């Protein structure tokens, strides 16, 4: 069954059809939530709330990119969450390593088994650095750069998600890239060598 048919079924209250759409889009939705919120538990909550909201509002879907529609609902949920976090800062509840007693920011069950240990460590360092830099961006800049650069969305679809004109997407993306670039250059020493942006040996 294609997406349009599933959406029609869901509009008529077919939960199974909607759940099939959830399975298609949950990865992208969760990933966007994670990049926007920078934390797993909040990202999961936001994703779940977004799908509930989407199911309740499915009749208001009027065509266009369904992915953009779902992700728009998610960004709104994330903005609400970010505002709530600003008002009530919370402690990060990452799992604690039993042996060392230290907090594990990236639990083993989330790591990618297909890479070598060194690569995994480097990857994690890079990811942490990027996530920090993304976290320092204003919400609207962060959303655009995650949609386009992290998730590989084109300008048109990104503009559908955030409901802003293409020109705004273009300028926000340029500003966001510039700021992330500055941020990563500042963190250069902390990054694995191959990821450093301010490599003086380059022409």
């Amino acid at each position, binding site marked *: 069954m294609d997406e349009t048919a599933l959406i029609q079924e869901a509009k008529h209250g077919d939960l199974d059809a909607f759940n099939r759409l959830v399975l298609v889009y949950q990865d992208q939705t969760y990933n966007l939530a994670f990049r926007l919120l920078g934390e797993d538990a909040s990202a999961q909550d936001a994703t779940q709330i977004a799908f509930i909201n989407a199911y309740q509002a499915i009749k208001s879907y009027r065509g266009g990119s369904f992915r953009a529609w779902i992700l728009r609902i998610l960004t709104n949920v994330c903005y609400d969450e970010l505002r709530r976090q600003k008002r009530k800062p919370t402690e990060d509840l990452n799992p604690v390593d039993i042996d060392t007693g230290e907090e594990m920011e990236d639990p083993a069950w989330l790591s990618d088994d297909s890479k070598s240990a060194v690569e995994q460590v480097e990857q994690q360092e890079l990811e942490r650095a990027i996530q920090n830099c993304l976290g320092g961006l204003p919400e609207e800049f962060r959303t655009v750069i995650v949609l*386009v*650069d992290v998730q590989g969305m084109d300008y048109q679809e990104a503009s559908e998600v955030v409901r802003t004109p293409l020109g705004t997407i273009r300028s926000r993306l340029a500003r966001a890239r*510039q700021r992330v670039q500055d941020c990563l250059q500042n963190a250069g020493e902390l990054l694995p060598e191959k990821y450093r942006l301010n490599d003086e040996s380059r022409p």
Partner: protein
Amino acid sequence: MNKHRNLSSSDWLLLSAYLDNQLSEIEKRQMDERLQSDPECRKALDTLRRTSSLLRSLPARRTPRNFTLSARPLPVKTLPSFVGILRFSSAAVALLLVAAFALDLTQRTPLMSVSKTAENAQPSVAMESAKMSAADAVEDKAPMIIFWGAPAPMMGAYGKGGGGGGAEGLGVGGGAAPESFGIGGGGAAEEVLPEETPLVEELPAFQPTPYAEMPVPDVIEEQLPESEMQPKAAFVPEPLTGSGPILGVRSAEERTAVDEAADAPLRQPPIQTILPFRLIEIVLAALLILTAIPAWLLRHK
């Protein structure tokens, strides 16, 4: 920490769009030319490209679980929160307060000016009307008095005598017609007449004209003795100009009533509408304080 100091933010915008192939043909050609001639621009583009590819290299995280919905979910929030209600009501009260102020201002400013003129004008109007009524009473003494006094008897006259009777009524006075025809409103007229008999003499000047108009001479003759009474009816008003129930009072009342009716909308508002406005504004302001303060205090929850 931007190392490319010679590049403006619009240059960065163009470079960023160039990276995604989002420039128009002309912009793209210009950028190509610039990249060939400007090594700093080339380096900036290279750094930007690496930044973008670093972001793209971020691994997609595996979803820790499925987010499928197990049953038809209940509405997340069916009722607005207490704080929401407070916020909404305080906003609504604020709007009402503004509206009340606006209405108050727009109502009051014209009234203030009008009420002054009304107050100034009123006494003179009253005076005029008083003069008028007095003057009218004097001027119209004979004819007007008869005319005003006539209606009740005339009704009787019309009832019985028709055209002739009417002429009689008009010319001679209310009392004449009923009595001459023997029936009608005589009762009332007769009661009044005896009391005022002493004043009969003052009427003679008026009598001739009615008699001249009288179509039936017999009737005149018969009525002649009674005509002494008719004048009484016609005469009634003269002494009563100020207080008589039939004539003077009625016209004066009417006039003042008309004056009052005209003045009423001008005079009343300043006193009567401002007070309710004040009251409404005070109540709204109190409500605003009562809702806004808790809403503000609870906003962090």
